């Protein structure tokens, strides 16, 4: 076949890397791996999709009961807010939790095949994104069914999701690379994720904090993201992000944190990637 063609020039082989091996192959592989994972989750059993939907819905039902019957939050549209928050947060928590062990779990291909290592955690996040898409359908149906008016700002939701994805990728890269060296990252991360869950305005709306303390909250990137999502989807009377945080600083600080997380995550992963096959 290609034998008759002019001889190819000798090229250096520099060993495995996080990226490398062609952009097309990189994206194809990421896409294929996550589609495969997604398919296996949803089409493995007849009720695959129903089950995956049942989990967040059940969690929602429990939390909703607790926070409206026992701890009475007096917030308009609390149910819609809670469901939206849970759905968005689950992209982060589920993807990162899965990503932690992803590189180690794929040991067999990492040690025996050549491909850009970054594909593994990225495909986990992409699978999470597919899940989010499906879950958001349920959220939209719920919003409409409970009388929330559709509005143009709904179209801006992808921006929020994009920011969330960037943050998720940063964290996934960091934890999956660290796990190769340190096996207790898994335990540490599951606790951290739980802390983040309760420490972010997922269950509770921003208004429950006294005004003087809200600026503290906005160091957490989830605060402006979830708050903005609430504004776009459910709308006023939610306070706008800048109002809630008290200043523009409320947006800049979390943005810096997200960027820093991504940089550290990428740096760690790229450094680990060349030797990952030996470390496992």
């Amino acid at each position, binding site marked *: *076949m*290609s*034998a*008759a063609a002019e*001889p*190819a*020039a*000798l*090229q*250096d*082989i*520099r*060993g*495995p890397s996080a990226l490398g091996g062609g952009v*097309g*192959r990189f994206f*194809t*592989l990421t896409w*294929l*791996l996550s589609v*495969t994972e997604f398919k*296996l989750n949803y089409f*493995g059993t007849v009720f695959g999709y129903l089950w995956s939907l049942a989990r967040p819905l059940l969690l929602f039902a429990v939390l909703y009961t607790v926070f409206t019957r026992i701890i009475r939050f007096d917030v308009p549209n609390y149910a819609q807010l809670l469901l939206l928050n849970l759905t968005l947060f689950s992209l982060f928590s589920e993807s990162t939790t899965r990503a932690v062990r992803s590189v180690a779990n794929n040991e*067999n*291909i*990492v*040690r*025996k*095949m*050549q*491909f850009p290592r970054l594909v593994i955690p990225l495909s986990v996040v992409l699978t999470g994104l597919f899940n989010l898409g499906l879950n958001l359908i349920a959220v939209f149906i719920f919003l409409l069914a409970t009388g929330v008016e559709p509005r143009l700002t709904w179209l801006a939701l992808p921006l929020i999701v994009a920011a969330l994805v960037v943050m998720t990728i940063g964290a996934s890269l960091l934890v999956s690379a660290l796990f190769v*060296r*340190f*096996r*207790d*990252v898994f335990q*540490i991360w599951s606790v951290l994720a739980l802390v983040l869950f309760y420490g972010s305005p997922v269950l509770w709306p921003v208004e429950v904090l006294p005004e003087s303390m809200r600026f503290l909250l906005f160091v957490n990137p989830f605060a402006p993201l979830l708050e903005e999502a609430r504004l776009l989807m459910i709308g006023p009377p939610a306070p706008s992000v800048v109002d809630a945080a008290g200043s523009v600083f409320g947006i800049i600080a979390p943005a810096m944190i997200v960027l820093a997380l991504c940089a550290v995550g990428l740096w760690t992963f790229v450094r680990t990637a*060349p*030797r990952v*096959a*030996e470390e496992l």
Partner: protein
Amino acid sequence: MAERPIAIEVKDLHKSFRMPSHRVSTIKERAVRPFSPIDYTTLHALRGISFRVAKGEFMGIAGRNGSGKTTLLKLLASIYRADSGRLRVAGSLAPLIELGVGFNPNLTARENVLLNGVMMGMTPREARSRFDKIIEFAELEEFVEMKLKNYSSGMSMRLAFAVMVQSDADVLMVDEVLAVGDASFAQKCADEFQRLHDEGRTILLVTHSMESLRSLCDHAILIEDGVVDLDGDPADVANRYLQINFKGPGQAPPQSADGAGGEAGRIAEVWLEDSDGERSRGFPHGSPIHLVAVIEAKQEINRPSFGFDIRSSGGVPVFASGSQQLADSLKRGDRVTFRATVPNPLRPGSYAISCGLAQSGSRPVHWRPRIAELVVWGRPQFGLVALDWSWELERESQADAVETTRE
């Protein structure tokens, strides 16, 4: 041949692995003892490997377990990163370190082929368009939509191999596939390699089978202890491989199998030497074997005699020396070395040598069953031994006056 362009060039390649003797695998441990040094033992897998492969060549890589073959392959395949040295490859390279890596048992053959093909460097379009050819080669037409977990191991192996040979890569690199699978599959692999070779692809084959090395490759290297021991003709490499593989005394047979006796005197040690006087357990067919035994007398032994036998690995007695009287007597504390030279008409294979010491005719003193292992290598033949024989042909009725006699 010398004018052919180079497909692979490896120059002074080094690779070592650091193995922490006590692995710190958690952050907790690191945090508790932040300054405790981590001890590493360094394993030098490759220490300066250099070779070249011409385009279109079929090169075999031989070497014992742990000699660094797989490390070399993994470096070429970009799975490991080299410590130093240079690795250059012309064109694309499809590595196959193991058959069926990355196959997901929960996916069907079709999905796995797509996934595996892309991993091997095909585009999804190529993988799809070659799907039929792949399935045809693997002879799995009826099972296309079946999940791989329901495949037999042979079926998934055929599929994996089929994916590999359909890749367009200029250089194919294969680790030990011929060793797995049944005879017909192995033959099919060999045929396919031949076809790819004829097509002008460069192939690198790591193998333990000296037969495939001889029959398939047109160039071979032998890796021993992280360096290239020999680079050249496959037949030479195969012989050298067998030679070093059986060099040295090898694993000593368990000393507890001390056999019977040993009170009055004992056979302390038995080993084999080649004609250069070097201890060995592997001998090329035809080269004489020197048997050396050290005998110690604990008491006076009258008319000591010594004998040995050679049995095939199946336990068939091939030869017995009978007992030979060594001396009139051995005094208490005497230590003597017995040397015998045995011609080697033995068919390639492995044999066990047992030795016995007796006194005063045939009263046994010490019997050491299977004390030495003997491996004979060379071209496989049928039968137990290769005897020197000759033949001639006589013509009874002479049609014309030509005499035909041959030796």
